[in-house]
């Protein structure tokens, strides 16, 4: 293999990646409009919520004017969008702090939780999926199949509660509440994150493992696999060097979808362990009608989701010489 061909292929692929990136940006813009519209449809607003039931209509109107809620929707949308682009999603109506600060406090926690979970679950899921695909129909495959199916079916609050029951109440190994603070040592952080990570991992491992199994099993039936075996290539090498380059596209897509779940979908786990993450912040924002905060959270989730899908797309393109050559 000469080094020049992959190199030029990399350049050939740049316009394609650029196109995907542009379409992700457009999607994000559309999402912003949808988020803004839907949050506007929610009953009640922050002024009403702040003043309570006993407030007179005049007081509410005055506060509304002060908060800028009485301006036309389109004006508010563009003001808000401009703010977001400049990195200032506005003022949290309830906490009376810039939304940026509120989020800055929570986002690292969520990212850390997602990163820990990804670190644990991705390698495990790949290993389970590949092992399962290789021994298709065998005892190992059937066992793993039942286990992953069960894990997908069991609700995560049950996993979390069982985890607490076993590791916190019976064994007293781990704290039942995730106390994350800046001055906690790394060990303490890891310990307090252990149960949330466990609960989240159970679900995403199962999803990713099943998708990996399907992708690998599909490739194992291809004639080129038989050909490689008939060349005397050891099976391990067949899987790693022949099957995986072809299966990596669908696998990274499955991984991206599962990982995107780790942020917004972590709400139940965050609630059970009282984990100060972004998902619970967003739910609080809904209940207190704190629209700027709610909108900012929604935009972050969407942006992260789109980014993960974009990365998966790019990996799939790079892994496929047909797409690369386009």
């Amino acid at each position, binding site marked *: 293999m*000469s080094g020049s061909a992959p190199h030029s292929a990399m350049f050939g692929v740049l316009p394609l990646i650029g196109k995907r990136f542009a379409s992700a940006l457009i999607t994000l813009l559309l999402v912003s409009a949808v988020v803004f519209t839907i949050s506007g449809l929610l009953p009640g607003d922050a002024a009403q919520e702040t003043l309570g039931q006993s407030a007179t209509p005049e007081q509410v109107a005055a506060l509304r004017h002060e908060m800028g809620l009485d301006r036309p929707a389109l004006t508010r949308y563009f003001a808000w969008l401009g703010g977001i682009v400049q990195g200032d999603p506005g003022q949290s109506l309830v906490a009376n702090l810039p939304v940026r600060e509120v989020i800055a406090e929570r986002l690292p926690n969520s990212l850390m939780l997602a990163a820990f979970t990804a670190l644990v679950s991705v390698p495990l899921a790949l290993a389970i999926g590949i092992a399962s695909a290789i021994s298709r129909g065998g005892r190992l495959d059937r066992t793993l199949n039942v286990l992953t199916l069960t894990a997908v079916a069991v609700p995560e609050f049950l996993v979390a509660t069982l985890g607490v029951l076993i590791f916190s109440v019976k064994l007293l190994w781990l704290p039942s509440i995730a106390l994350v603070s800046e001055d906690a040592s790394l060990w303490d952080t890891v310990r307090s994150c252990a149960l949330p990570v466990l609960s989240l991992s159970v679900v995403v491992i199962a999803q990713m493992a099943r998708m990996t199994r399907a992708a690998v099993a599909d490739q194992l039936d291809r004639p080129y696999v038989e050909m490689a075996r*008939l*060349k005397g290539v050891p099976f391990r090498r067949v899987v790693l060097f022949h099957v995986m380059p072809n299966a990596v596209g669908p696998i990274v897509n499955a991984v991206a979808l599962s990982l995107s779940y780790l942020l917004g979908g972590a709400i139940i786990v965050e609630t059970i362990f009282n984990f100060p993450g972004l998902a619970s912040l967003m739910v609080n924002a809904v209940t207190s009608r704190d629209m700027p905060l709610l909108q900012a959270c929604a935009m972050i989730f969407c942006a992260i989701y789109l980014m993960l899908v974009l990365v998966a797309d790019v990996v799939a393109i790079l892994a496929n010489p047909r797409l690369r050559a386009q």
Partner: protein
Amino acid sequence: MSAHVSVRNLRIVAGSKAIVDGVSFEIARGKVLALIGESGSGKTTIALALMGHSRFGATISGEVLLGETRVDQLDEAGLQALRGRRVAYVAQSAASAFNPSRTIMSQVTEPLLVHRLASKADAEVRAVDLFRALALPFPESIGARYPHQLSGGQLQRLMAAMALITRPELVILDEPTTALDVTTQVEVLKAFKAAIASVGATAIYVSHDLAVVAQMADQILVLNQGRTKEQGAAEQILHAPTDDYTRTLMAAASPTERSAPAVVAGDALLKVEGVHAAYGRLPVLHDISLQLARGATLGVIGESGSGKSTLARVIAGLLPRSAGSVRLGGEELPKGIDGRSREQFRRVQLVFQNADTALNPVHTVGQTLARPLAFYHGLKGAEAKAEVARLLDMIRLPADLATRNVRQLSGGQKQRVNLARALAARPDVLLCDEVTSALDTVVGAAILELIDELRRELGIATVFISHDISTVRAFCDQVLVLYGGTAVEQADAAAFARGVHHPYTDLLMHSVPEMRAGWLEQAVTRKAVLPSEVGDDLCRFLPRCPVAIDGRCNAEAAPLRAGDGFALLCHHELQTLRELTA
């Protein structure tokens, strides 16, 4: 000297069924044994058993001896050491047997590397030498390419390079040219033969094509349903077969001229005039005209990519034409299927190449046939049932097959049902797109006979699309030769047989292997004389033409030369062509 390869009493069982039963043979060192038979005869299964490999978990018993090694007694590690080093395999479809995500070079050198026979650098040098020996273009750089960037013929030769790179003692070739055009097949066969001889390997050649086998084999073993029918020297089997089944195979391989030529009466039923068609911006058909009378058969031939299937799709309306007209009995047919009436649909029926994918697998035969009956003729209940029975009788299938699921039928039966589905509409024009290419020779010959009979009895005009020139010659009243979407030659059967041909037709005819040893050595692969790209108006065949005239063929469009019952596009005078192609 004892045999190099010796197989005794080989039995391969899948589930409770013996796929191969009691097969024995021996091959002397450096000789080629051909395994021939129809699909399901167990020929590939036997070939794979020589590498200790079986598909679908079938069990192999019996004795397989390679030199001093008992292949049947090797464990997994022993087999791994054997495969790709002492025994190498060339698969039927190189397009799917190469890994789409890895470069050719990494795959070709892999056998050397996994068996630790050479360093990476040495392996690449050896690969390039083989590429050169196999007459591949750009031997220095072709290795950096990916499979999808290469043609079928090139991939098949690259696969031979992959097999021969370790200088194996035994090479197994599993229908290595079946998926190729005849013109490509000649080159690939030549390259294979020379390369195998240069390595001095013993070979097993699996094929259903007797003419190809005649070029390659020293010995032949004829198989039917897993059992040996006949076995002996190639000459004896090909020229003095003793077994009935072998004779059937031989008979099916050389199509007999059909007895009754079509009675062509009256005006043309189907009239195609100046049709152009394109897929998006890619032009596929260029100015095609043809006429077909009731009960007549037009054969359309050309290589893959010549536009012959597209022509059927355009007539059927599946691909709207971009210019020209298609008339049926004087009435102009709308371009696409959207504008056509149910009656117009009924009159033009298309039979697809692959019955496996053309028939809905969850339907029974009865449902499949009843659908067009209800749709076109409003037949229901007992009436429809009677008509289904009549159709089944017409295609010579037992009536109780109506309740069977399509999936439960054999390949030949499916193709008959596929044909009956089209006939159910009682069409005026039947478009048959490569209807026999996926079938075994014997089964295919029976289908051809059936189509011919129905054509005669029902007076259906048939457009018969095929890449097999000998079938078309034997079977059709008119011949249309397509190259690159242009009709380079058009003739009626008599004129076609008399033999003034376009250089391309000539190439096609001379590329069909003959059933005698030594044909391959005599077959001259003539090189193109003018290096050029195709210009829009120039002859499409110019880049491959062995007799092109510099200054004319690469300067202006080819003129139409017409004679008694034929017309062709060529710069050469008819008299010159007659001499050139004699």
